[in-house]
């Protein structure tokens, strides 16, 4: 039989490899429905990073304020401190707690609605306004003008602000509710006294 020169696969046809949403090979995966929004949100953030060519121009942060340890023992007289060779930078809680200092604010929690998340009344919450609020994060939300701290839950296109204390009701966000996500809680500072 004579080989046909028509039909069949043509090389170079179709969508180019690695040209899709993620610019690399992808894979189909089963995701539990309750986690769907969380996974979607984090993929969205990943894609935004992939696509923002401009962002890459920016320096991460000004490299100001790096403390350089100095040698403590004076030379000659006496025995040099054996620890001098091991001097390291001091531990700085600001560095540990704050990722984006321009966007970070401290707020004070009131009431027990988030006890289950380890937030006690009077605790100081470290809030980063620059972070995207994805499902599952604890957020500072403004519901119809009032501030509240709750866990953000997105499921099947519905948004709920969940309290972590059975004595408190969740806040279901309807089309009539005005919701602003003010920031994402990154740490809780609790004093043991």
């Amino acid at each position, binding site marked *: 039989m004579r080989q046909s020169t028509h039909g069949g696969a043509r090389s170079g046809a179709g969508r180019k490899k690695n040209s899709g949403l993620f610019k690399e090979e992808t894979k189909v995966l089963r995701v539990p429905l309750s986690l769907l929004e969380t996974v979607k949100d984090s993929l969205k953030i990943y894609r935004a990073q992939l696509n923002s060519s401009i962002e890459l121009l920016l320096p991460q942060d000004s490299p100001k304020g790096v403390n350089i340890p100095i040698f403590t023992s004076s030379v000659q007289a006496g025995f040099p401190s054996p620890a001098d060779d091991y001097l390291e930078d001091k531990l700085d809680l600001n560095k540990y707690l704050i990722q984006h200092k321009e966007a970070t604010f401290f707020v*004070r929690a009131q009431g027990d609605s988030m006890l289950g998340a380890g937030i006690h009344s009077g605790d100081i919450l470290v809030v980063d306004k620059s972070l995207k609020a994805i499902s599952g994060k604890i957020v500072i939300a403004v519901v119809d003008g009032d501030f509240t701290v709750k866990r953000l839950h997105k499921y099947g296109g519905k948004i709920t602000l969940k309290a972590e204390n059975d004595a408190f009701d969740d806040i279901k966000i309807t089309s009539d509710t005005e919701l602003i996500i003010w920031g994402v809680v990154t740490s809780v500072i609790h004093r043991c006294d």
Partner: protein
Amino acid sequence: MIKKLALIDCNNFYASCERAFNPKLNGVPIVVLSNNDGCVIARSNEAKALGIPMGEPYFKMRDLAKANGVVVCSSNYALYGDMSNRVMRIIKRYSPEQEVYSIDESFINLSGMSIDLIKYMQQLKKQVKNWTGIPVCVGMGRTKVLAKLANRVAKKYAKFNGVFDIDELPKARFNNLLKTVDIGDIWGLGSKSKIKLNALGLSNALEFCGANKSLIQSVLGVSAVRIQKELLGESCLALELLRPAKKQIVSSRSFGHSLVSFDEVNQALTCLARKAVNKLVVDHLGCLSMSVFIRTNPFSKKQAYVNFSKSIKFVNPLYSDRALLPVVSQLLRQIYQTQHQFYKGGIVLTRLVPRGAQYDLFGRVDKGTLTLDKASHKSLLSHVISANEIGNNRWLSNAEHRSPRYTTQWQELLLVE
């Protein structure tokens, strides 16, 4: 290389700071009052629309405010200053060259950046809003005056989404724009220049551009010629990347109540001197001269207006609270008179010199820098204080409507349930 400057200006900055921590104020008219709740120094768009003028005394607009649900805020400089620092630091990420022009305005240099600058500035605008809650507008142009003008356009016309490059305008449309700009609204020309130029028959920016250069120079001097050149696209004003060295430090206040007794006035001035000395310490400066002044209310009908002041020069520079604060009382004693009601007072430190500079070899050297001063430098807000700073506090300004200092006081953090 294509020259391009951007002016980033916060929208209604003080009102926006209040809104950032109180979303209920969105869409509500807000006015911010000067120190001591004297007069209006900032307005939200809604308050502008009500016709409340800038500088309006509070007592004159109190009824209007009540009738229209205007929210009145005492100025909260601790909050505004902190929010300003945050905004400026974010802006700095977008260019190696930044001039912080005022508490709510900053120029940056974008020259030679071969990217889509509109997109780049949109990103800046978005980042400042997301990170701090403060809305900004960006104007771009080849010169500072043009960038400033572009910012006006960006603010005025919603279709630009807060970012506008004036150099993109074709010549004819640029001229049309200039025609709509009043001569007094050109950056760098004040109300006095406006009167003189109006007298010459010049009323808008286009006419100013077309005016004879030597005429402008003879009427307003060389600085106005620079403004004209800038408007025509020739850059004459460079970015000031370093803050110019301080020439003087002023610390003055209208008092919350009229002060009569010496002790009251003395407390007020000593406390104000403390603020001035703190600035001196932070900037590593000393001063060779100090003045104090006190005055009565110039608008009072009950008493004659008096304005007393006294200065002193020092042989060696003084750096410390220990050396400077006692001088305040000494000077005050020489000008104070019993029968007056003092309404305002202040301290001026002048002839500032860098720390460690040596002057007269035989003069007494201010050694206070080494001990007490160091302790107060460590924590400017909690320190050993002079007895003169203690009193009945009647001098303290009224700030009845001040919002909490959300970002600088642990006791005043935002509360969330």
